[in-house]
């Protein structure tokens, strides 16, 4: 039987919005922040290497401080128990933009070892990928007009 692998299991409030709630198209909203921040702040300044808590059942507080502008931060998610073993992910952000995702802890099972690196590709690149069509886009004609699929079909 195949099993579902939770490839990213971050429940820290500060992280989830960044990964899946990447705020709007990457250019909007972030440009202001980036412009306001001096170039020199881009260096890895806050390396918060959170040691993995032994008690993976309790939710560790991985969010160290409120997000600051265009700084590089490394944040560890909580360790999450899955049917395949314990998974813990670390995300590096520059401002609100994810620049790296890596597994701190991943079970040794083959599918998970594969799944975590692939997630990194998705998280970083899915937004800018060239596509031919969209699944889950449009249940209604109203939605269609506003959808990526309409743009692909050339029907504004």
């Amino acid at each position, binding site marked *: *039987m*195949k*099993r*579902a*692998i*939770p*490839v*990213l*299991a*971050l*429940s820290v409030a500060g992280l*989830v919005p960044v*990964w*899946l*709630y*990447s705020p*709007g*198209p990457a250019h909007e909203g972030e440009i202001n922040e980036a412009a306001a921040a001096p170039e020199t702040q881009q260096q890895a300044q806050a390396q918060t290497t959170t040691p993995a808590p032994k008690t993976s059942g309790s939710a560790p507080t991985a969010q160290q401080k409120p997000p600051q502008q265009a700084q590089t931060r490394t944040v560890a998610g909580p360790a999450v128990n899955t049917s395949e073993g314990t998974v813990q992910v670390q995300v590096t952000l520059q401002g609100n933009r994810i620049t790296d995702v890596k597994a701190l802890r991943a079970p040794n099972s*083959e*599918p998970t070892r*594969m*799944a975590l690196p*692939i*997630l990194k*590709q*998705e998280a970083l*690149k*899915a*937004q*800018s*990928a*060239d*596509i*031919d*069509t*969209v*699944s*889950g*886009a*449009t*249940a*209604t*004609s109203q*939605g*269609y007009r*506003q*959808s*990526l*699929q*309409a743009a692909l*079909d*050339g*029907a504004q």
Partner: protein
Amino acid sequence: MRRVEQIMGLPISVDLRDGDDALAERAFAWLREADERFSPFKPDSEVSRLDRGELTREELTPDLVEVLSLCDWYEESTGGAFTAQVPGRGLDPCAVVKGWAVQRAADLLREGGASAFCLNAGGDVVTAGEPEPGKPWRVGVRHPDLADQLCVVLGVRDGAVATSALYERGQHILDGRTGQPVTGILSVTIFADDLAIADTTATAAFALGKEGIEWAAAQEDCEIFIVDEDRRVFRSPGLPVHIC
């Protein structure tokens, strides 16, 4: 050749890379026919007549028998969470009809000689061959929260991708066991060989709520990409993720 038409209340688009353009018309004609015959919203459809008791199951066309047997199979498999007959409402096999009819439209294209095409019916997709030599069709999956963004891109040659999600229509999927809107999952994407299977599995998994994750992953020949309400992503290892 690209064409979009509104059928079954859905924008349906075809992107045909080879074969005769007339094939697209044949596919659309079949979809219009399926809408006439199986829509519960059209009083003269076979489904409406069955629902009113004007037809018995023995009098049905083989097509509707096939649709209803798919409905029955998924209803049993999900313990009634997926159902074509929510208590207090009329018979509504739409959840199966759409994927089934679009898959048959794709089969018509193939039988007519087309070998490279992409058919998209309101976000449920059937693909064949390659858009250009050596490349798969790149099927972006809509982000559950952001309409203009993607959460994953799949690379598909001959296959089907269906997504069931909460966005846009609001909470449109009911748990047949309770009659209440489903909670627990934001988006279910299923990759399979056949859109009837992919679409129905996606809807049924959604109807099951969180139980639907393991249920869908265990379905033969289905690969999953599911986002739960905590924004956790569940993915089966065989999912054809396109690395760009």
